[in-house]
């Protein structure tokens, strides 16, 4: 009798638990691994409410950490990451390895429902590899020359048009309490930070055959110039990235420097900034500064329904959402970007438009993250005086050549 009772209870319990277990399996959260800046926080929140009944577990962290975690997930073929933030450089690497889904079919299927034809083709191109689109772009970000308008007016200065002029300006504005400039040379930042000076004073990063050219005579001149500039930088610049750079400006300890467009809004936020209304932006000296298209992609190893994942991304990046985030990141939807009311509302937009015209993405080399890491380690050694400039750059170039040879370049 007792046995029957237990059996009935067990059967009843199992019957009751089954639907719950099923619901649990269906509502397993969608995992997002993303870099963190205000616009990405906004879109991560939008994803959480994009589809009813679908929970999104958003894990936001600095870009270096995000990229590393993503690589670990991919290399283990883990289904633990469903959607991810990426930029053009990461996209090329992931796409080449077959780690992310091409989105062309999904874009075609949901084009009308989510008005995807409105997305700027240039931004889509920024997340394309080998003729296929691998990410939905959220912004095309650009580095800008940020400067203290009040200080420049007081000293009757104009934004520099060459990097030599920038060294002079930084020297002039440098004081113990407010440094002449702020630099970001931590982690994955140096390739972006150094692009403008290497592209305008030097010969750039690579030639058309992917052989390094950052170590040429002109390249040495460019890095030597940056070394001179670093004498007027906020201390600790080798351990500073975007967050620290933003605080340097916001806390009034830097007069000039390069800043991503996505950080401009913070400067006018009275809760975070001591310099509200005092910052202004221009094209970095000589232009050709780093551009980066940021977007979201779908992991090839995700066990979730790919259409459902795509709908989360498309919904989070719809027109209404991009309007709400217009102060945080340059929108990729033309309806928002070209809206005169938006253009007038955010005072840094005119400078952003000019920067987008003259900027350049990082080299479209799938292994650029790795090559850049090796090159920049040596470049930073040159900037801080750990190695002579020429020795550092030639060593870095040799290491990059060796790496790319191992990766199968330069055959024949």
């Amino acid at each position: 009798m007792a046995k029957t009772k237990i059996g009935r209870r067990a059967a009843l319990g199992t019957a009751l638990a089954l639907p719950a277990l099923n619901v649990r399996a269906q509502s397993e959260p969608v995992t997002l691994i993303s870099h963190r800046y205000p616009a990405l926080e906004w879109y991560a929140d939008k994803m959480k409410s994009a589809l009813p009944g679908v929970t999104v577990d958003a894990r936001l962290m600095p870009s270096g950490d995000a990229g590393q975690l993503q690589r670990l997930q991919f290399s283990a073929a883990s289904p633990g990451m469903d959607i991810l933030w990426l930029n053009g450089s990461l996209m090329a690497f992931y796409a080449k390895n077959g780690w992310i889904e091409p989105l062309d079919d999904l874009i075609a299927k949901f084009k009308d429902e989510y008005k995807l034809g409105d997305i700027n083709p240039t931004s889509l191109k920024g997340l394309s590899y080998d003729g296929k689109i691998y990410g939905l772009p959220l912004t095309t970000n650009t580095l800008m020359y940020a400067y203290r308008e009040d200080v420049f007016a007081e000293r009757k200065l104009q934004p520099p048009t060459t990097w030599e002029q920038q060294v002079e300006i930084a020297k002039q504005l440098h004081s113990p309490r407010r440094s002449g400039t702020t630099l970001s040379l931590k982690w994955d930042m140096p390739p972006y930070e150094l692009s403008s000076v290497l592209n305008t004073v030097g010969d750039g990063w690579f030639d058309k055959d992917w052989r390094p050219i950052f170590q040429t005579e002109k390249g040495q001149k460019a890095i030597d110039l940056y070394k001179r500039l670093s004498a007027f930088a906020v201390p600790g610049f080798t351990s500073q990235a975007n967050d620290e750079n933003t605080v340097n400006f916001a806390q009034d300890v830097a007069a000039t420097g390069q800043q991503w467009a996505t950080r401009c809004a913070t400067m006018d936020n009275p809760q975070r900034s001591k310099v509200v209304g005092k910052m202004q932006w221009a094209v970095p000296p000589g232009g050709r500064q780093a551009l980066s298209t940021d977007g979201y992609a779908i992991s090839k190893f995700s066990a979730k329904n790919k259409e459902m994942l795509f709908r989360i991304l498309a919904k989070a990046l719809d027109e209404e959402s991009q309007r709400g985030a217009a102060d945080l990141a340059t929108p990729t939807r033309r309806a928002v970007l070209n809206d005169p009311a938006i253009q007038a509302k955010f005072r840094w937009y005119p400078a952003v438009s000019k920067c987008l015209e003259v900027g350049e993405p990082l080299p479209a080399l799938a292994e650029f993250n790795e090559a850049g890491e090796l090159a920049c380690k040596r470049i930073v050694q040159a900037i801080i005086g750990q190695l002579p400039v020429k020795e550092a750059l030639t060593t870095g170039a040799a290491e990059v050549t060796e790496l790319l040879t191992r990766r199968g370049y330069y055959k024949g």
Partner: protein
Amino acid sequence: MGESGPMWLFMAPSVLVIALVLFYPFFSAVYYSFFNYYLGSQAITFAGLDNYTNLLSEERFWITLGNTFFIVGCSVALQLVLGLALALALYACTRGVRLISLLNFLPHVVTPVVGGIFLKWMFVGRWGLLDATLIGFNIFPPDWLGDPGWAKFTVILADTWKFMPFLMLVLYAGLQAFDTALLEAARIDGASPWQLLWYIILPMMKPLILFVVAIRTMDAFRFFDLIYVLTNGGPGTATETITLYTYQIGFRLLEVGRASALGVLTLIVVAMMVAGLIWFMQRRGREAF
């Protein structure tokens, strides 16, 4: 023989766990160290000893090894001196010992990464707690994290802040086990506090001191998290230790074969160092210190 059967049965779970978490990764690392294994490629090719010879001929390997020895040496020495001083101070204290030792131990309880972030906001240039305070008094401090020399000093200080409490507590526990009659006798004979320390306390604590130094040295050789958060090995390669370099090869360049070879080389270096310390301890033990 009859009794060893059940004994093995009892040991089986622990042996299985050790095999899974220790032997499997270890032998995998040794195995992969003989291959060209890049995570971005499907092909894994046999490389023989190439990974080892390439690493040993790299200047950067020797620089990071040198950095590791320097940082570990300075850090453990500083921890020992401060830990011993604090343990002696606690030993001399008559009131509030528990509270003081608890407060001193707090840094050791904090997760290393959280501790690293906390220290980073202290040492960061211009608006960090330390800089902001000193600048308030018109004192302009050095570039703690950006100057190669000061960055080394800062990571040594950070490691000391984190691990000195461990040494202090172990040494304090050792002092508690002292036969106070010896100290009393020396005092009656007119020994000064320095003489007590030099001729009574330190000789009696030698085995314990050697033990904690050995443990901390082995542990410090794996020093990673605090440096990772504070300087990420920079500026340049100034604070890049061998574990950070292994991390860079494995997790940034995704070269599992080379990273495994570097891991095996690190293991050999640490094993040699530990063997040296054990030999030293045993030799001293025979001399009945």
